[in-house]
């Protein structure tokens, strides 16, 4: 093993970056890292530079590209099942081309419909909006915005990606097994997911799903531990916690949520694996299936739901918080105004993170839980609306009397706020158990969570991608294509999900393959067709983004100004052509908070964090 290569770059320079606001320690570190600046030592081997890279910026790219590929697959699946929902009586030969015997004669089978729904959820929630989002932006921005040369442990960081990659390979393999991929929904409730007699997808497909997800949990923990330790230990001189950009605060709390909740999900999976393969009865009791009574007694199917949602709900915030952080940053920069209420923003993040652990059972109001227990969860769930409202009002006030530049990232940030309001408000319906009784598991829920965590989180991600693309590749994405992409997505998302509220209030259940036999729900057939048409248009709109993204890597307009958005944060003090270790010389020292968008005395309207205070100037 070429040990010196794997350790060489990041670990060595890391010594230089390891400063935790301790003013005295910093100077002797400078000498050490100075020796590495000249890049006199050997370049890492191709494999270690481009595949098993330990550079946080490169790992961020790996997460990003993998996430984009998964996003295309996940979105394509939704187009497939929307074809079935929009035109249940038509056949689509193209489906047979793609899916073979799962769509004989161009008609999707019910079994595979459920597999597609399951995979769509799993892929987008975990692979795209957890790994793809946190993995990309936490990795890129935590060291760059804090003034660190790399993550606390670049090696663990690399492992995090490769566990994610392996999880993805296994999940992808499960698409091709004889009995099909898992089909019990992304929540995989037993007994359906535990018994291979219950549904075809609960055979080998489910085994692969569980193995893949377990590896994913490992990846997520390795990443999360790294993010937390980097934030706590590796801030540059002057970068106190209260001077961190809100992006980093958001990634920090995201990582804490993941670290504390993913292990619980893992334990839930372990018990499920035992029930499936080793004859235990954690979740199984009194079941008669496929013509025989099973020997399992004494388990509780509801236990799984508690374990699952103990992750499942924080997971929603794992998906949301990065978007909130990115939006705060981009709104402030482009309004040329400080984010309003920085401390309130941090405190509301603390509030959301804490409450996120205390609301999981609001997914289970109709499982027959004790009404008293239910009432506690109603109270805690609706409480979460308070910090969320604070964030919204602060974003609005940030725009107020600004001097707003509508570049593409800003459009997506505004879209994020709009979507977050729309989706957040419907949460008030679902969090109130008395209203949830009727709305539970209907299209209202689909509308709610797609808007609030699907679309919003994607908007946060898009905003971030357009904004930090120059940091990734030294080039810009095409503006015009970006604007077109924004408008297709923004209008399309509302057209798709808004009408679903109406379907849900009518009681139309989610996860139905066909509604034509139902007197109570078939009145929405023409609406479903309309939604499916919009889905197809929006899907092609996203391909526009993909085209823009990949062509811009090589053909995009070159970055000439190292700080193209006139932003205050440290990532824009690095050279245009990024290097391993981030800063060629000393790591910049921080003198002020990240949102000093004010007159700098020289005609500019911003003062970067590394600019010393002027005489007589007070630090905010």
């Amino acid at each position, binding site marked *: 093993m070429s040990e010196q290569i794997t350790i060489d770059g990041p670990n060595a320079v890391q010594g230089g970056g390891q400063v935790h606001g301790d003013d005295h320690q910093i100077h002797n570190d400078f000498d050490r890292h100075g020796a590495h600046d000249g890049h006199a030592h050997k370049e890492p081997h191709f494999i270690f530079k481009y595949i098993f890279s330990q550079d946080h910026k490169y790992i961020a790219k790996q997460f990003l590209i993998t996430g984009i590929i998964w996003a295309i697959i996940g979105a394509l699946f939704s187009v497939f099942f929307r074809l079935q929902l929009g035109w249940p009586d038509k056949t689509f030969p193209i489906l047979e081309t793609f899916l073979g015997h799962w769509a004989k004669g161009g008609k999707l089978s019910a079994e595979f419909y459920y597999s597609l729904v399951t995979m769509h959820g799993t892929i987008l929630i975990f692979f795209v909006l957890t790994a793809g989002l946190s993995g990309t932006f936490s990795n890129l921005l935590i060291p760059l915005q804090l003034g660190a040369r790399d993550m606390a442990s670049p090696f663990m960081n690399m492992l995090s990606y490769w566990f994610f990659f392996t999880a993805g390979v296994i999940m992808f393999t499960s698409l091709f097994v004889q009995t099909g991929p898992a089909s019990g929904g992304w929540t995989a409730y037993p007994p359906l997911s535990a018994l291979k007699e219950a*549904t075809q997808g609960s055979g080998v497909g489910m085994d692969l799903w569980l193995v893949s997800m377990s590896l994913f949990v490992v990846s997520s923990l390795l990443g999360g531990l790294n993010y937390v330790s980097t934030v706590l230990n590796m801030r540059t001189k002057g970068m106190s916690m209260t001077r961190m950009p809100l992006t980093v605060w958001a990634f920090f709390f995201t990582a804490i949520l993941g670290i504390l909740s993913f292990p619980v999900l893992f334990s839930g999976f372990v018990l499920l694996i035992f029930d499936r393969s080793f004859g235990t009865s954690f979740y199984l009791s009194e*079941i*008669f*299936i496929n013509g025989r009574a099973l020997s399992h007694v004494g388990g509780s*199917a509801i236990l799984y739901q508690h374990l699952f949602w103990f992750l499942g709900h924080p997971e929603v915030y794992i998906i949301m918080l990065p978007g909130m952080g990115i939006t705060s940053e981009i709104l402030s920069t482009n309004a040329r105004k400080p984010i309003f209420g920085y401390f309130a923003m941090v405190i509301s993040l603390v509030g959301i993170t804490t409450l996120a652990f205390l609301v999981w059972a609001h997914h289970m109001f109709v499982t027959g839980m004790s*009404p008293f227990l239910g009432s506690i969860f109603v109270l805690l769930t609706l409480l979460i609306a308070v910090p969320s409202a604070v964030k919204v009002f602060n974003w609005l006030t940030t*725009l107020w009397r600004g001097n707003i530049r509508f570049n593409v990232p800003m459009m997506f940030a505004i879209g994020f706020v709009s979507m977050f309001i729309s989706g957040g408000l419907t949460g008030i319906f679902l969090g109130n158990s008395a209203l949830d009784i*009727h709305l539970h598991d209907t299209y209202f829920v689909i509308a709610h969570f797609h808007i609030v965590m699907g679309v919003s989180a994607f908007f946060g991600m898009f905003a971030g991608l357009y904004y930090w693309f120059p940091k990734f590749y030294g080039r810009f994405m095409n503006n015009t294509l970006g604007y077109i992409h924004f408008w297709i997505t923004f209008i399309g998302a509302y057209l798709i999900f808004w009408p679903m509220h109406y379907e849900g209030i009518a009681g139309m259940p989610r996860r139905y393959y066909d509604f034509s036999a139902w007197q109570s729900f078939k009145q929405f057939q023409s609406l479903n067709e309309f939604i499916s048409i919009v889905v197809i248009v929006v899907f092609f709109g996203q391909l526009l983004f993909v085209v823009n993204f990949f062509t811009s890597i090589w053909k995009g307009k070159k970055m000439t100004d190292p700080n193209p958005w006139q932003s205050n944060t440290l990532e824009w003090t690095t050279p245009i052509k990024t290097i391993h270790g981030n800063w060629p010389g000393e790591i910049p020292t921080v003198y002020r908070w990240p949102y000093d968008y004010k007159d700098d005395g020289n005609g500019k309207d911003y003062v970067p964090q590394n600019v010393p205070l002027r005489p007589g100037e007070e630090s905010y």
Partner: protein
Amino acid sequence: MSFTIFALVALFFVIVYQIGKASEYAGILRGEEKVKAQSNRLMAALLLLFFIVGCWGLWECHYALLDKMLPKSASVQGEAYDEMLNATIIITGIVFIATQALLFWFAFRYQAREDRKAYFYPHNNKLELLWTTIPAIIMAIMVAVGLKHWFSVTSTAPANSQVVEIVGKQFNWLIRYPGADGELGKRNFRLINDANNVLGLDYKDKHNLDDIVNQSGELHLVKGRPVKLIIGSRDVIHDVGLPQFRYKMDAVPGITTSIWFTPSVSTEEMKKITKNPNFVYEISCDQLCGSGHYSMRGTVIVHDTQAELNQWMKSQKSDYAINFGSTAPAASSSGVDEKKTTSGDSSKKVSMR
């Protein structure tokens, strides 16, 4: 055909891409600052336009879908539910319009201009306090109202309630009425057998002898009389969904759950109200239960009077009578067990696909 579509889509992408590229070059030629200012004005205007057109679209959407949205409530509890739902829609609706209006108005009003300077306004604790306490108070009221409803709908069923058991299986509902003795007998999942004992009734328990089992998922209720549903499942988790009655409850294997409500509109009345002579209340399965989930349909028939229901009950034979003739059972249930056949499971095959 599919090639043509593919070619058209590809062509579309090429054109859009070229437009994007061309505008980039044109921007360089015409001066980037000027182009930026121009697109800034355009985007600000479009955002405001989006809000205005969006409001109109909302109105149109509401107009088109309102009648299809909430079916008329058919239970006493459902009426209270509708009130609460409407109140919540109004409150959130106001907040929705107000915040979205501010968002898009600020975006338009404060678009970048040469002569404008952003106002340095980093914080204001009074404002923060204001919009922490107001949402908190509104939420507290909503929690209070919600919990009042919640505790009333989850309270113990009245003593005069009709008791019916509903059991889910892949993929239909089995409904059991207590028969003349008014009591449901014991069930044991090990006694289940699809040929002659779909619910696993334990005939050692004499209460089972007159129990009526309806395998076609027909739930017969009476207008004005509370009904308590005892909910169970034979295999995986199902969920009894009663959209017109505004109720829903999971059916979990190994656990018994229950709900109660009072039907307030009979099926016949609803036929008149909806002007649909074929109207029928439906029971949907609301928890993914396998490939036939979407077809797991039951029906509810709400009779106008108890007499009408009694008459229907009389026309039904008990499950015991259907499967084992009308004679009294042997002292032990072993006789039943012997008749267990392995061929069972016919009902499942029918409903599989």
